[in-house]
């Protein structure tokens, strides 16, 4: 009784400290039922301080939905490791991990309040905010570079995007904006390139049905090489086109009503990522408990290594994993706008460093 009361006092105190308006004891209610009135949240320099709970106390339940099937994407690994190593528990969280089939339902569930955090590609996040107006907010930017690249078989003789002229180039679903930006940055003529929708099937490249195939840098190149083919790869950032990768994302409502929950989540997950960077073998072992036997461990290791590399920049060297700036987001937004895609005029609500700061200032 006293223990619960003390915890409640600590949590209420923490909520008061970090968000003056959210004084309702959210922690004692199911997390998906926001109790507090929505109010403007100001980044608070006096960050919340919650001691890691030493005694077994009631953990705060929440759900993280990975934006795709179980695999070694960095945002997933951070959560897998944090859960397995007890980092979330030390933060007083009981995190349930779900997986999306990757058709956007994780964004739907987040907007509906069924889950509290998921992950999303930065460019897609900006577009979904503008249309249909999903209330998404990035609380950490893990992919400091984009995930996409374009691949051709080395044997095809295609050496640069200029050589794409007269060939077929695949895209998944709709042609991504960075494709056109890359084509024009490389000085190629997009009218001389035939674009075809290929979906997910890298066999179309090896079987010669398409000459240039869109890949996730950390995924298909491993598969295709394991089948015995050499690849040429081109990524947007190699041609000076701004690109960003995966973010941890929450909704505006959860950011307003439960910043403390998000802070604890992010602190645990970033610790998981740090641990994975120091102990990649163990991180893959943990990941494999989610993926099942049809997954190749070496493939997962390739994925983790590639994503750890792209998660590091001058910015993260100074500020830590997941850091993000207005400059980065604005450059991406400008590129999307230049390609004629809907993006909000003011993108400053699309991301926040409030949670990153609070998580760091422990």
């Amino acid at each position, binding site marked *: 009784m006293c223990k619960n009361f003390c915890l409640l006092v600590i949590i209420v105190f923490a909520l008061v400290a970090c968000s003056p308006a959210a004084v309702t004891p959210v922690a004692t209610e199911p997390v998906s039922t926001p109790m507090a009135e929505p109010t403007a949240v100001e980044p608070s320099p006096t960050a919340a301080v919650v001691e890691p709970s030493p005694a077994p106390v009631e953990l705060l339940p929440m759900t993280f939905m990975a934006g795709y099937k179980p695999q070694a994407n960095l945002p997933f690994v951070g959560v897998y490791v944090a859960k397995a190593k007890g980092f979330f528990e030390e933060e007083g969280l009981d995190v349930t991990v779900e*997986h999306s089939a990757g058709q956007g*339902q994780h964004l739907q*569930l987040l907007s509906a309040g*069924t889950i509290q955090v998921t992950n999303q590609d930065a460019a897609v996040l900006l577009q979904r905010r503008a249309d249909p107006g999903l209330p998404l907010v990035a609380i950490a930017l893990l992919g400091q570079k984009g995930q996409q690249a374009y691949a051709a078989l080395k044997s095809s003789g295609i050496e640069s995007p200029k050589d794409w002229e007269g060939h077929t180039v695949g895209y998944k679903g709709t042609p991504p904006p960075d494709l056109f930006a890359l084509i024009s940055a490389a000085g190629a003529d997009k009218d001389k390139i035939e674009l075809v929708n290929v979906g997910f099937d890298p066999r179309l490249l090896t079987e010669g049905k398409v000459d240039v195939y869109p890949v996730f840098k950390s995924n298909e190149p491993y598969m295709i090489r394991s089948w015995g083919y050499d690849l040429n790869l081109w990524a947007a950032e190699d041609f000076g086109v701004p690109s960003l990768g995966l973010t941890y994302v929450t909704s505006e409502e959860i950011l307003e009503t439960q910043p403390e929950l998000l802070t604890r989540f992010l602190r645990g997950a970033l610790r998981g990522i740090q641990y994975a960077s120091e102990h990649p073998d163990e991180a893959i072992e943990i990941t494999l408990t989610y993926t099942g*036997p049809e997954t190749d461990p070496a493939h997962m290791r390739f994925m983790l290594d590639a994503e750890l590399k792209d998660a590091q920049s001058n910015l993260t060297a100074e500020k830590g994993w997941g850091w993000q700036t207005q400059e980065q987001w604005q450059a991406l937004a400008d590129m999307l706008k230049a390609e004629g895609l809907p993006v909000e005029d003011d993108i400053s609500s699309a991301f926040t460093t409030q949670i990153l700061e609070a998580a760091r200032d422990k």
Partner: protein
Amino acid sequence: MNRSRKSGWVALTIVLIFLGGWEAAVRIFEVPVYILPSPSRTFETLAANPEMYLQASALTLGESLAGLLIGVLAGGLLAVLLTLLPGLEGGVMTLAILMKSTPLVAIAPLLTIWLGFGVVPKIVITALMTFFPVLVNVLSGLQHVEPALTDLFHSWNASRWEVLRHLRLPTALPFLFAALKISAPLALIGAVVAEWTGASGGLGRTMWLAYTNLNLPYLFAAIFILAAGGMSLFRLLGWLERKIVFWLPDSRES
């Protein structure tokens, strides 16, 4: 009995010839395993992971049968209701066709929002998929009684309920079995599709993981299980039909 045993051997031989041809083609043309795995490779995968496939199959089969049961009960009861209150038929059938035309993949996330991450949304999707063939078939069965027999029942002063109980329902039974033969394999597909759109277990999830890893032996192993399951359900229904609708001549025996 003798005949059905013979037809069983014929079926087995045809399946074996098909698998043999497939195996030979894969070997002769050296088809890479990520394009098309050989049956032998597929069976090896099955044999190497018995526990995983058993668990996944049990879950998927359970969801299928639960969904099928609900779908059949709902479709059958609705058909009876529409026979007793024919005025409702136009409206209810419009609604049923609307539901039937909705691609369930598109509404699967909605079901997750309403019903959670567990098995319930999978059962609901399976029920939605199996309900329509039952409704349409049973309804036409209930309506296709011979006019002469209806007249006879009326001359006996039979109530609407008695006509249903003693005339319409027995007439509709063969129609129900025809519907079940369509709906039962559909139930397996329904559960797999539902799992494919997000699940933490089952054959659908196994297939989705295998496909996105382009690990085709794992994918085909699940397809083999589904094919065997669909065939077993179909045969079981044929056997039940011969037992229950005993007054009709069996097409295979005549």
